[in-house]
């Protein structure tokens, strides 16, 4: 009973409050999203990533930093599911704790990149003129360099480390977002509903913030999710090159890097972190695809 009345409350044609209208809208999007099996799988992977990170101490049988030199480079067994690395650390435990590192990178980059790209792009597209020219030239400068090379340069300047790696990735990741937001804004600004708010005497900032940005948001969320795989790979790449998270932090890229000397004899050292990166990147990609179908439609 309670369930059917809640569904009715969500799907009603005549909601009685803003909150009910918003929740109803979200519920309809969820229904559409749910029909896409692959997207659901992607969501499952991302949720699993969150849960593993949250409950890492419960899921990891051993301390990810505890060395055990006599037991080094052991193949997968019931005691060490994914084997041990060259310092005798349990790879399974390290991968479980590595989800936390990955999540930190992902969340920090999203917090930095999304808003910067969105604001620069929306302001550039809506205001036009010299603001547009200035902001877009800056964007072009950043776009002119290959992303990993630019990130490398920044890390080299800032010094290796997880925080600096995140900052470097963020600095190199925002320009495409600004481009997307600007392109969207150029379409949106010529719409009648924007003319209508202008006719109500709204200030430029109010129009950009309250009317243009909400329309750009869905495509940026989709883009961020799709980009997440790339961000994780870049972070892993920096880790692999020794410029990201520093040992002994269990970062997946750095783990692959550490295993590269044994890649032919002790395959498991590099393979399992590699698989973890693949699965998480795939999860974000599938999720992004599903979100695009639901959110980007007009």
């Amino acid at each position, binding site marked *: 009973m309670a369930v059917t009345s809640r569904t009715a409350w969500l799907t009603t044609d005549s909601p009685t409050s803003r909150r009910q209208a918003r929740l109803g809208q979200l519920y309809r999007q969820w229904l559409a999203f749910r029909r896409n099996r692959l997207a659901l799988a992607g969501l499952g992977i991302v949720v699993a990533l969150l849960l593993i990170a949250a409950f890492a101490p419960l899921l990891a049988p051993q301390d990810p930093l505890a060395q055990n030199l006599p037991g080094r480079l052991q193949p997968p067994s019931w005691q060490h599911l994914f084997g041990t690395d060259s310092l005798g650390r349990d790879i399974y435990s390290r991968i479980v704790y590595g989800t936390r590192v990955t999540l930190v990178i992902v969340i920090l980059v999203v917090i930095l990149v999304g808003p910067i790209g969105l604001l620069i792009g929306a302001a550039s597209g809506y205001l036009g003129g010299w603001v547009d020219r200035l902001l877009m030239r800056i964007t072009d400068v950043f776009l002119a360099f290959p992303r990993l090379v630019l990130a490398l340069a920044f890390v080299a300047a800032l010094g290796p480390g997880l925080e600096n790696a995140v900052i470097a990735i963020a600095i190199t990741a925002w320009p495409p977002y600004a481009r997307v937001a600007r392109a969207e804004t150029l379409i949106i600004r010529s719409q009648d509903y924007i003319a209508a708010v202008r006719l*109500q005497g*709204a200030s430029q900032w109010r129009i950009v913030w309250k009317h243009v940005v909400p*329309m750009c948001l869905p495509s940026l969320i989709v883009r961020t999710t799709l980009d997440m795989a790339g961000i994780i790979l870049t972070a892993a790449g920096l880790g692999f090159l020794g410029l990201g998270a520093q040992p002994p932090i269990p970062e997946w890229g750095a783990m692959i890097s550490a295993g590269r000397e044994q890649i032919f004899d002790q395959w498991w050292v590099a393979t399992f972190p590699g698989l973890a990166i693949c699965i998480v990147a795939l999860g974000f990609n599938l999720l992004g695809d599903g979100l695009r179908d639901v959110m980007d439609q007009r």
Partner: protein
Amino acid sequence: MTATPAIAVEKLNVFFGDSHVVKDLSFTVSPGESYGIVGESGSGKSTVLRVLAGLNRDWSGAVAILGESQPKLRSKAFYRSSQMVFQDPYGSLHPKKTVDDTLAEPLTIHGLGDAQARIGRAMSDVGLPASFRFRYPHQLSGGQRQRVAIARALVLEPTILLLDEPTSALDVSIQAEVLNLLTSLRHARKLTYILVSHDLAVVAHMCERLLVMQFGAGVEEMTAATLAARAPKTDYARQLLTASEGFRRAG
């Protein structure tokens, strides 16, 4: 002495790059009058409306609204006197805002209190049931959307409404409902209308006087009675009139 006109346009010229889209246009509209502007696409009729509304800022000439000469950049007070209704009800409402959000926005911008009551009144004035208040545009039909757009224009209680083909995207039966609504609102609120349309019958039904435009210039100004009597003076106006009567098979 006659009363100050609600709208006075003198020697209005608009250029888009090299093309001269409005040429030396002058007309006046009295308070409470409904004035039609008729023309084919490219006649500049919608551009005139956008200049009056302050949406187009590249023009020369003189525009006075309620006796006040208007600068290119309008004051906030101007928007409380004049509002506009657009042609396409599917493009003129923000897709991510409920009816309530749309109607509350002008009230917030102008710092008007009592939003609840004002929104309720605006909705009942345009014949929208209160249960539609928290619907999104995609949950409304074309006619209902146009009612929301009219409510949005009226919520600031303007005296002038600029109507840009308000019914040309609607089915005829819905057009009749919206035109009836516009007529009764005008009488109840003593509004001044400028109605831009390509449909002579709609203009004759809604307006007392009208201006026929072609290639950016005013061709002929006449009363609705002249139009109904099929007695325009200029060839072009007569040609439009004949064309609007439908197809005629020769011999």
